[in-house]
């Protein structure tokens, strides 16, 4: 009898698709390449979604899992400087300063491969961390889950090193990694008790970084590219059906979009050329910055004023800060390549971030126009250049699919936590 009165627990399933753009999904659906996704959007709604600033995975997935902006969750990039020094460190899960929606909801959860969750920590359920995760054992909770993942030869990430001299091996590794990922998702979906299920596919982002120029044209690897999307579509169809059987709300989302690269832009080289930065040894980078330097850049386009009192060799006084920042912003706005403006928008720290960790954020953030991949490298010879990368992230073209009709036309990645939490209650 009791079961009649017991409220049935509401379930949520999220499949994260790292770097899958809204525009590309729409196009592939129209072209008939993603039949499952096509039927999904007839029943639910697909939204274009804005992501975090900076528009990189570690920051964006942290905004996804906390529903907060970097000023509140404290993650501004893959690397950060230790306070009062030029020593670099790599923020991990322990540096995320806001609660994740699974911790806040306290529901039975399976959290697979979400970036920026390394090392894994105990929760009600199962977790295995995503990029950057070094050791599967430390990346997985509890140990039984580690034993299982180890036994199937689960791979945390694609070996992108293979791109250097063995492209067929890269594609093979991409599909092996994806197979293992699917196997793990299916296993935990079936064998764990969960109310919230999240599985992130990283392979799409890896494919895009090296082959996004083949997404739309008939280049040599176009077929590899669309074949991989067919596999993605087949898997989404499978999980969507399974989620329906569980009466679960089903979502997919990405952490940013992608677009082909026209040129890379090395902002530290630009700062050097404009006389704002001097680096003693370009290979050693920031630790060799001179006292005369007034600004520097960290990946991807976080610009910091070299303030006195904040940095060991900083000489810029507080009184000079506003003037210097305005001057830099003005020059950045006019920075051009082939007479095209590099910057789409220049953001100032306090207008962009909000929360107790805002002071840690960059003084200026440069959002580029499509095609200009901004980089913080110190060891480049010129301001513009190219490499073996073919795709770059976009800020305004991530996607979110919800298996419910929703009026919203334009979402932000910080909204997802709210949607999920409200549904789980």
């Amino acid at each position, binding site marked *: 009898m009791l079961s009649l009165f017991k409220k049935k627990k509401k379930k949520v399933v999220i499949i994260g698709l790292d770097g899958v753009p809204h525009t590309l999904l729409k196009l592939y659906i129209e072209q008939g390449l993603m039949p499952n996704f096509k039927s999904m959007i007839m029943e639910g709604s697909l939204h274009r979604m804005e992501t975090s600033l900076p528009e990189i995975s570690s920051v964006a997935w942290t905004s996804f899992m906390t529903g907060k902006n970097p000023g509140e969750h404290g993650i501004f990039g893959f690397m950060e400087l230790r306070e009062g020094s030029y020593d670099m460190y*790599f923020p991990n899960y322990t540096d995320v300063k806001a609660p994740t929606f699974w911790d806040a909801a306290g529901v039975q959860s399976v959290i697979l491969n979400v970036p920026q969750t390394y090392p894994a920590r105990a929760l009600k359920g199962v977790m295995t961390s995503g990029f950057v995760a070094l050791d599967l054992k430390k990346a997985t909770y509890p140990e039984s889950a580690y034993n299982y993942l180890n036994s199937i030869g689960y791979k945390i*990430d694609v*070996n992108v090193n293979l791109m250097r001299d*063995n492209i067929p091996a890269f594609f093979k590794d991409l599909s092996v990694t994806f197979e293992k990922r699917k196997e793990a998702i299916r296993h935990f979906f079936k064998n764990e008790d969960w109310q919230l299920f999240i599985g992130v596919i990283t392979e799409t982002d890896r494919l895009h970084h090296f082959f996004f120029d083949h997404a739309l044209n008939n280049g040599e690897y176009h077929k590899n590219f669309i074949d991989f999307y067919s596999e993605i579509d087949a898997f989404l169809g499978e999980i969507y059906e399974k989620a329906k059987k569980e009466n679960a709300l089903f979502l997919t989302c990405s952490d940013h979009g992608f677009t082909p690269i026209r040129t890379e832009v090395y902002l530290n080289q630009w700062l050097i050329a404009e006389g704002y930065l001097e680096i003693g040894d370009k290979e050693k980078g920031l630790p060799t910055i001179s006292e005369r330097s007034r600004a520097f850049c960290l990946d991807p386009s976080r610009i910091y004023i070299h303030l006195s009192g904040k940095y060991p060799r900083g000489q810029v006084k507080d009184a000079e800060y506003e003037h210097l920042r305005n001057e830099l912003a003005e020059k950045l706005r006019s920075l051009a390549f082939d007479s095209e403006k590099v910057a789409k928008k220049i953001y100032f720290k306090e207008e962009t971030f909000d929360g107790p960790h805002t002071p840690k954020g960059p003084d200026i953030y440069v959002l580029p126009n499509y095609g200009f991949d901004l980089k913080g490298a110190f060891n480049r010879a010129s301001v513009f250049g190219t490499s073996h990368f073919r795709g770059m992230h976009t800020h305004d073209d991530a996607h979110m699919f919800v298996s419910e009709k929703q009026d919203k036309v334009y979402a932000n990645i910080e909204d997802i936590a709210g949607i999920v939490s409200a549904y789980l209650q």
Partner: protein
Amino acid sequence: MSFSLNEKVEQSKKIIREAVEQFGYENIAIAWTGGKDSTTLLWLFKSVCSELSIPMPKCMFIDEGDVFDEIMEIVEYLKKEWALNVIMCKNIDVTSRIQKLGDMVKVKDLNERNRQEIKNINFQDDEFPFEPESYIGNHLMKTVPMKAFIEDNGIKVLATAIRWDEQEARTEETYFSRRSSPDHLRIHPILHFRERDIWDNIHKNSIPFCKLYYQGFRSLGARCSTKKFSDIPAWEQDLENTTERSGRGQDKEAIMGQLRDLGYM
């Protein structure tokens, strides 16, 4: 309390002496990688054997398919210099089927032994990419040749150069430890050496070592997965406050490597 380097050396020699006296040098093998720790272990064995006027046990060197040239150089050099009997172990059945890292190996092409080993670890795919440090690669390229070596040579005792301070997982190890499949005894004579002790002992006794340590490598594994820790020689680095194996897919360097591969840094 802490022990002096001399006391640590004596402790190691005592363990080696015990093993040699109980099992006989001919039933013992020393696992040698060409790295600083196992070369130190070899040097300790050499001292004990010369004190007891007995021959050196044989050495097992495992070629996992991606060995640094600099490692081969020191191995060849010491082999002659110290007149060592080194047995090179390599899973040729696997390496003969590939040309470079990442190439695919089909399970059905492998010999029965390897197929059985693959089955034993519950690997179910039809093929896998060749990577010495993947789950399956590690098993086929390191564990399998070691097992074959122990069986083929009737080895009763295998001495290895693991140390307590290397990584957390090793803090539970003991000097003598029984192993099954195949049945043998592991001995760990230098468990109590710290990274600093290894270098102090190497310099004090002019023990030859691989030149990669000059270039900043702290710990050596397969070429594809070992990165430099710094540009200064290993022994001049801050050994007490940084992790030795971080150049081996563990910490900072590994993270930077992964980020660089994706265009950051």
